[in-house]
């Protein structure tokens, strides 16, 4: 079964079926988030309707350029659907991402999984994309992108 599919984009707690004590986060943390609603099994059917409405609301927003408050109406709609919004425990993900900028993780789970998969002695080395340090290949210190200071003089001074 796919082990860590959508959770790659979640920073919630790891459930019982996950890899437990491995702390995992993508090496590069994009700030992108999907605005559309992801369907989850625990949601009530009411939320299913809201998903459809949400998407049509976005379409409306795109077409009505003349609407003076395109976002205000969208906000009001969402607040009506989810009255408990804004009181989410667990902190703001956006702010946490900003604070954790620059954090790099070595995923020991990936490392051990890839190692266990290999029947042969030959271990996979880094492919052309050296920035991909997680996944199937086993990272080594040599694979990590080298950060060197620029020895070249700034072009402004040229």
């Amino acid at each position, binding site marked *: 079964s796919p082990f860590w599919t959508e959770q790659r984009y979640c920073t919630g707690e790891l459930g019982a079926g996950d890899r437990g004590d491995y702390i995992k986060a993508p090496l590069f943390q994009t700030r992108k988030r999907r605005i559309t609603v992801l369907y989850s099994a625990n949601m009530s059917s009411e939320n299913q309707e809201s998903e459809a409405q949400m998407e049509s609301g976005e379409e409306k927003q795109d077409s009505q*350029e003349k609407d003076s408050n395109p976002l205000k109406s969208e906000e009001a709609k969402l607040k009506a659907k989810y009255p408990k919004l804004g009181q989410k425990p667990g902190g703001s993900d956006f702010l946490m991402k900003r604070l954790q900028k620059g954090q790099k993780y070595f995923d020991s789970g990936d490392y051990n999984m890839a190692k266990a998969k290999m029947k042969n002695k030959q271990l996979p080395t880094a492919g052309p994309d050296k920035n991909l340090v997680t996944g199937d290949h086993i990272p080594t210190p040599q694979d990590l992108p080298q950060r060197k200071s620029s020895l070249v003089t700034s072009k402004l001074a040229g």
Partner: protein
Amino acid sequence: MAGAGGGSSDVQWCFSQVKGAIDDDVAEADIISTVEFNHSGELLATGDKGGRVVIFQQELENKSQPQSRGEYNVYSTFQSHEPEFDYLKSLEIEEKINKIRWLPQKNAAQFLLSTNDKTIKLWKISERDKRPEGYNLKEEDGRYRDPTTVTTLRVPVFRPMDLMVEASPRRVFANAHTYHINSISVNSDYETYLSADDLRINLWHLEITDRSFNIVDIKPANMEELTEVITAAEFHPNQCNTFVYSSSKGTIRLCDMRASALCDKHSKLFEEPEDPKQPPLPLLLLLEIISKKKEIIIIIMISDVKFSHNGRFMMTRDYLSVKIWDLNMETRPVETYQVHEYLRSKLCSLYENDCIFDKFECCWNGNDSVVMTGSYNNFFRMFDRAQRRDVTLEASRESSRPRSVLKPRKVCAGGKRKKDEISVDSLDFNKKILHTAWHPQDNIIAVATTNNLYIFQDKLN
């Protein structure tokens, strides 16, 4: 003040110089990250993502060219910060120069503070135009002479040499910030300065590197309760006890260091109430999926805050507008200028391409009559406060002929596009002007595009 910032309507801006490479292939290290004039305006410093500082010096005015003020030429360049890796925290520390602030000149040398995400450095830039010659124990090339071969003695003398400008780090202020430094500001007492990161502000003495005072700490005891971060901070220009800091929630807090050692409790809180009829602040809805929960964040980030030179006003820049606040009135700004109102209906796509997180800066002219800020498509905007007029100009190679007057630009929000107008959908969002600076006395401005520095002057007749 002779020649100090006139109104944007009667000033005609002309191209003066452009620095940097012409090619479109921009190396990441060449991206300009900060621009700052010194207190006299004679020096102009830039910092880039590669951790390098380049300082330009204004040449003395040329009598044969009375139509223009002196040109800025390279004075000194040095590597200020290097990339680092904090192995203990698994944290990569960028060498990008976030801010440069000049110290007022006290002697022949110039001093500036430059900072990256974690470390602030004090650099001394000094000139050397003489060197000693005629040592008894050293040859001219530096080799030591055998003392037993010395038969006569002479007095070394200083002889002129070609001007050499040296930059040396005099202080390194490190290890005081857990989070990323976004601002530094020199105090008017010329002895202390503040540095601000996302959650804390520290007060340093320029002579002391192993200690700093923490004066603001907004880190909650439980990080899960975190609701806002500090986005910018600045000392008052002449009250050494006063400073302000802006937050990601769109508020500005003014603090008085005489009130208490820890300034968590503000003296004044500047916050504009939401207008139910039309939101004056840019609202952006973010829908985040955390497991099975949902959250809405409203982001009204203030990206820059700057006091006026006279210390009576402060200016804040948020994503869509520039606001001027009277320090005596906390309830609302006294002036609001729309920078690119035509983007209000595009906020969702600007979120998709990450542009919504661009941190635009703003600046005042010398006599606080005009304010300036950047926009997209290499446009920048000036707002004349007294005459209530604004202008949009462009920093481009096309209008780069010496002393050519810049033509005002106009963006067409919708409907029929007139000739010479540019439509919103044609704007290049990769060409953003985040950093601008205004000469402290004259009408000379420095505008940084991604990797080029443009210098414009007003037309002298």
